Structure formats: C-alpha cells, structure tokens
C-alpha cells in the first residue's frame, strides 16, 4: 500500500497496485479518449423511442460525426441503447444481450418508460425501473426525447467516458448479487443465463463483496448445464433428426 487514502476504496487499490509504469495514467487518458470517440451502438428498439433514432443517425443530425455508429451484433457493440418500455419478456432478452457484450459496455435508457414505467406505470407486463436489472449509465428522459436530446445525451456519455465516470459495467460485476436478485424476483428462481458473470468479475479483477451472495448461491443450485442445440429437418414426410438424439 503506497497511499493510505486508497484503502478507503479497496477495489480501486487493487487496481492501483499493479500500475508500475509511470506513464500509465497518460495511457489511460489516451485510451479513454479513443474509447469515447469510437462507439458502436446496439439499439435494442423495445418501444416507440426508436423512431427518433433514424433522424439522429442520418444526415440531419448525423451521429457519426461524433464517432457513433450502429452495430448489428452485441459482441461488437459498446453501447446498449434501450429505447422505450421494457416488457418482462423483453427484459430477459435484454439481459442476455447485455451479458454477451464485451467490456467496457455502457447502457443508455431512453424515454420515460425506462426511468419509472412511464405511461405503462400500472401495466402488469412491463418492468418499471431498468436500473434495477442492468447498470444504466445515462438516462435520456422524455416521451419521446427529440434527436437533439439524444445527441446531447451521447455527448454527456462521451464526457463521462473520458473522465472515467461511466463505469456501470464495473458496478454490474461488483454488485451482481443485487442485480441477480431483482432479476430472480421477476423471472423466478430458476433464471439463468449462459454468461458466467462471477467468473468474468474475477477475470477483470472486479469481484467485490457484493458479487456473490444468497442470490448467486440460488443460481448455482438451480443451474443446469447448457444442452447442445437440436436441429430438426422435415424431408419428404419423415422427420429426420440431426445433431443430438432427443430420446
């Protein structure tokens, strides 16, 4: 321990210990700058807010001049854009998508519905607060926010990435037990995803006291091994089975 002040934040201290290069902070600055200027955006168009994205991306407002481009797969994307209400059924898919993305990753919630349910405040089918299930870095409120507001939000996210404040993805690893508990509350005790979040947390050296807890123990109890995918082909009336036998 070089500095007693750093002990207050134990996770930060463990990162600081490994930094021996005197230019590390300069490199960090450079890396964060580059990160903030080239962001691939996966827009998960859950609701009506998606209609404001085409004008934000095309020639009138032209998001690409900020270095933001749409991306087609979650594994290559940096930003997950949730544009509107998230039904409980969609939320499962959103979480699966989020856990596939490579770190660092940022979540933006657009529209009032992601903040507090919006006009679906008394609907049985929609989740109310997105940040209970995923670490949201930025909300762009409005019903719906105009493209100017979307761009303003993107500028804000870029500033936060450059200053290192946009670390919601770290929060997901550090407080995974809390997020998982909220997910289990909606989806039931047997909820599981293919991603090994606890393993990733220890890989990134981000496992904290909140990573594991009662909810992750429940997950480990209920976890079933992933089964190989079965493919069925119907050829000429007889059902042929390719891949794993289903008997």
């Amino acid at each position, binding site marked *: 321990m070089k500095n007693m002040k750093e002990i207050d934040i134990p996770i930060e201290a463990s990162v600081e210990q490994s930094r021996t290069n005197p230019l590390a902070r300069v490199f960090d600055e450079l890396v964060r700058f580059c990160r903030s200027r080239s962001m691939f955006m996966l827009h998960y168009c859950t609701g009506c807010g998606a209609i404001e994205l085409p004008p934000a991306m095309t020639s009138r407002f032209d998001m690409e001049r900020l270095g933001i481009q749409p991306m087609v797969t979650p594994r290559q994307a940096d930003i997950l854009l949730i544009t509107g209400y998230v039904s409980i059924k969609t939320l499962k898919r959103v979480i699966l998508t989020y856990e596939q993305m490579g770190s660092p990753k940022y979540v933006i919630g657009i529209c009032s519905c992601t*903040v*507090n*349910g919006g006009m679906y405040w008394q609907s049985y*089918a929609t*989740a109310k607060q997105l940040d209970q299930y995923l670490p949201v870095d930025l909300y762009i409120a409005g019903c719906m926010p105009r493209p100017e507001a979307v761009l303003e939000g993107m500028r804000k996210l870029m500033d936060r990435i450059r200053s290192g404040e946009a670390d919601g993805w770290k929060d997901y690893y550090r407080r995974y037990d809390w997020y998982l508990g909220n997910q289990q509350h909606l989806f039931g005790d047997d909820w599981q995803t293919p991603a090994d979040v606890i393993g990733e947390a220890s890989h990134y050296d981000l496992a904290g006291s909140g990573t594991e807890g009662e909810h992750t123990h429940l997950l480990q109890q209920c976890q079933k091994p992933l089964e190989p995918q079965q493919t069925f082909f119907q050829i000429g009336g007889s059902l042929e089975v390719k891949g794993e036998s289903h008997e």
Partner: protein
Amino acid sequence: MSKTVTPWLDNLLQEIEGIEIRRKDSRRVRIDIAADSLPTLLELLRGRAGYVHLSAITCVDWIDESQFELVYQLWSYESQSLVSAHIRIARDPGVYVSVFDLYQPAAFFERDIHEMFGVYFEGSPDMSKFILTEWNGPPPMRKEFDAEAWVNETFERKEYQPDWLKEITEQGGGIVKSPEEARQKKP
C-alpha cells in the same frame, strides 16, 4: 354479386331458432345467438353464404352478469360484408367448444383468449401459453384482476422531488390531482 348483404342471407338465417339479427349498416350485421347454436350458424355462414374468413374472436368480461361474451367476426370476400356473431357463456366454469374444425385460424384466437381470460376451448389444438410466456399469475384481462395493486406489490418506484417542482407546488401548482383522487370522482 352485389356488395350489400342480400335478402337471401336473412332467409338463410331464419333456419336457426332463437336468433336476433340487427343490421348495423348495409354491409354489417350483428347476430345474437344462443351459445349452443353458434357452431350451426358458423357452418351455415361458411358453407352456404361464403363467410370463409374468421377475422377475430373477441372476448368481453361482463363480471356483474357473471358472463363472458364471445364475438366471432366473419368476413365474406364475395359480398364484402361483415357478420358479428355474439354469444354469452357462463363465467364459471368458462368452457366453450372450439371452432377449429371450421376455421383453422381460430386456434390462435382461442389460445389468446385462454391466456388472457382463462376461457377453456374444448377441442382446440393447443391451449398452452402464447404471448405471456413469463406470466404465472391469474389471466390478466379478467375484470377481477387488479393490475395496479399487482404492480404496487411487485415493483418499486423512483421518487422524483426536484426543487423546482417543490417551488411550483408551494405556489399551488404541480401535481394537482393524485391518480386515486382522479378515480374517486368518477360516478
């Protein structure tokens, strides 16, 4: 064939007893019929009047009368006209026969109504979950299901009390009516 519902349809429908026909329009007929006679009516309309398209089956929950109303919307491409057949069934046990043998798209509508209202259709090919695959509660479109109470029990809400709103509220503005108050004023 003319584009109005021709008199021969009336003659055809006279073959069924206990039927009430109301013309809403030159191309729209509402038929109220006893639940037992509906399959016969559909068979007549499909087989002899060209109403080959079942657009939708709608369910209405009349909780005070302890009944479900089922509305079968039938469309004829030949006469370009719509027939709505209304039946009432008892809310408890809420069981009716499927019309899948006459109209195959009925399978989807019946599955949907089973999910939303809990009406069971005998003879329908699939009564498993359809859209609400994550839902384990009671059928949510039934009138006795209180969605707001369920939401308040399941979800938390974010408090939002910014300073500017407090200032406006002090001056007599802001949120004038809470949802509860707004609802009480209804007769």
